[in-house]
């Protein structure tokens, strides 16, 4: 078995028992990157020199004794929206193509303290706006299960890198499904955390009332180990509540799911969804039943409005966040010469932003402009209350809600790019979770006839990550979908 195919917990044990060094592990990941990147384009920047240096330093520490964190000396990848001191951070945008941040995001600081070896920065849709990585300034990433297909997005590079063993684990961001949809398409485990559970400081913002940061990993145990390092309040992010951080591995040892009440929302098993996806998710639900869970049908009546709420709130908040890219404080100087400041803004933004960003900035600016605010943004915020209320009511009856993560398996690159609304439909099963602010775990639960991964989503109430990881871990001990690897 190649070292790069290990999970965090397997690699940590091998490091502890001195069966492998961090340098060997890192070199194996780098070799894998060299071999596969021409096909996958999962990375925007590979920090080879830095990774080798960090691995050697980690080995020196390990030689002196056992480090505290199981993440110590383990090579990881970060979506290219996490600011990394001295390592280029582009957000896959022409606007930031040469940006080298002078500081680390809080999550990066925490992972460095835990002993992360940083392999590089992974591909994403521009400023995380997309469901396929096709809007990346650096070209699309590809799915390791079938390189004609998208790995999903926006955290598609992180998901492809984890699935193809180009790293041991990765971090991604999820604003409307950007961790879960790629996790489903690449056959791996991804956790969208409760809004505010993980600090967003130093992570390039997309839609500030929806953005979350979370692990993209090979199984639930790994996701829990990552959560143990990154969760918690941060003085630099005022949206992180002071809720105690549990040991996320504490619940994983459960033998079964006796007493667990699972809800299946009828609005998520829709006509027209892929029959293999439906069959796989229903089989997974049967498995949960076998493990002791009680299952009942529930209703989330405002589900069908989730996407429309999202596509008002998201572009509005995107347009506000993108205002800072004025070509003055960071980014590249526009090629066209300007006669005054106004023209300089037009040039910097017109040249720098890609098509989808321009579209969202335009929609958001329109929706927030005088005379339209009440009709769009305020209306969407009110419907948001109703969507959120659906989940609050459901969690009075059930402990977790299970749905498919996506209505189909990964689509072919190019299939959705002509029509923005078709691409937006990719988020149909994931956005309501962001609107509500609750956590959701995406995990593999099948393989299609065309050999593409299928995923299910387990949604819980605010701060119920330990419960979600328990359900996931018990399910993963009973099944082996998470162990399937693409042949690449």
């Amino acid at each position, binding site marked *: 078995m190649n070292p790069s195919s290990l999970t965090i917990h397997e690699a940590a044990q091998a490091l502890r028992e001195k069966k492998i060094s961090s340098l060997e592990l890192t070199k194996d990941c780098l070799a894998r990157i060299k071999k596969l990147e021409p096909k996958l384009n999962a990375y925007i920047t590979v920090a080879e020199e830095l990774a080798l240096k960090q691995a050697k330093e980690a080995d020196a520490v390990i030689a002196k004794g056992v480090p505290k964190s199981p993440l110590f000396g383990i090579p990881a990848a970060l979506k290219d929206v996490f600011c990394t001191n001295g390592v280029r951070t582009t957000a896959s945008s022409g606007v930031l193509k040469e940006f080298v941040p002078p500081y680390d995001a809080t999550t990066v600081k925490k992972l460095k303290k835990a002993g992360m070896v940083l392999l590089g920065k992974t591909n994403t849709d521009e400023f995380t706006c997309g469901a396929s990585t096709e809007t990346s300034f650096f070209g699309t990433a590809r799915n390791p299960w079938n390189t004609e297909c998208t790995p999903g997005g926006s955290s598609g590079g992180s998901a492809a890198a984890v699935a193809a063993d180009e790293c041991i684990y990765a971090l991604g961001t999820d604003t409307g499904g950007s961790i879960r949809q790629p996790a489903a398409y690449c056959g791996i485990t991804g956790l969208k955390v409760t809004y505010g559970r993980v600090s967003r400081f130093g992570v390039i913002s997309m839609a500030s009332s929806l953005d979350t940061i979370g692990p993209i990993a090979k199984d639930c145990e790994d996701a829990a180990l990552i959560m143990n390092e990154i969760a918690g309040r941060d003085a630099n992010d005022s949206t992180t509540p002071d809720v105690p951080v549990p040991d996320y591995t504490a619940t994983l040892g459960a033998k079964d799911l006796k007493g667990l009440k699972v809800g299946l929302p009828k609005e998520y098993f829709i006509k027209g969804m892929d029959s293999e996806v439906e069959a796989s998710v229903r089989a997974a639900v049967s498995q949960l039943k076998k493990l002791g869970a009680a299952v009942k049908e529930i209703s989330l009546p405002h589900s069908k*409005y989730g996407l429309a709420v999202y*596509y008002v709130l998201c572009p509005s908040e995107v347009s506000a966040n993108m205002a800072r890219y*004025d070509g003055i404080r960071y980014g590249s100087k526009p090629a066209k010469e300007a006669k*005054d400041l106004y023209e300089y803004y037009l040039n910097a933004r017109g040249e720098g932003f890609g098509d989808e960003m321009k579209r969202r900035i335009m929609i958001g600016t329109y929706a927030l402009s005088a005379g339209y605010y009440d009709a769009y943004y305020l209306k969407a915020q009110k419907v948001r209350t*109703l969507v959120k209320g659906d989940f609050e009511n459901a969690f009075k009856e059930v402990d977790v809600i299970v749905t498919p993560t996506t209505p189909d398996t990964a689509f072919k690159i190019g299939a959705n790019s002509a029509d923005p609304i078709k691409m937006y439909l990719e988020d*149909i099963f994931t956005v309501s979770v962001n609107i509500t602010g609750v956590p959701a775990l995406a995990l593999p639960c099948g393989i299609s006839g065309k050999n593409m991964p299928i995923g299910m989503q387990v949604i819980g109430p605010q701060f119920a990550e330990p419960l979600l990881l328990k359900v996931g871990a018990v399910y993963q001990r009973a099944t082996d979908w998470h162990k399937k690897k693409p042949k690449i």
Partner: protein
Amino acid sequence: MPLASGYMLSRYFYLCSSNAKLSHVKLTKEQVQHVAKLARLGLSEAEIAKFQTQLSGILDYVEQLNEVNTDNVAPTAQVTGLTNVMREDKVLHSDKQGSLADPAALVACSPLPIEKNQIKVKNVF
């Protein structure tokens, strides 16, 4: 470009099915130009024409929110329940004090000329 799969279309119709009374928002070229000006976004003629159609399509799609009765429903702006998060207004100078970065390093991120730790921009008028 591959055509939309049957499944995609059925999903589309699922989403729009309840939306019988679409008002068909149609943005004029002048409206698109005005929004682009507000957003300080330089657009080509081709982009203006394209966005006129695409933005109208997206606005049409979100019109379905008008079907929902939101009388007496309070808006949700955020989901943490936190209010007035305060901290001391103190300047931090070194990493040990918890400063984010060296001010000179932050200013150096600019693509424009730097004078006395300030960024020199184009004239406003």
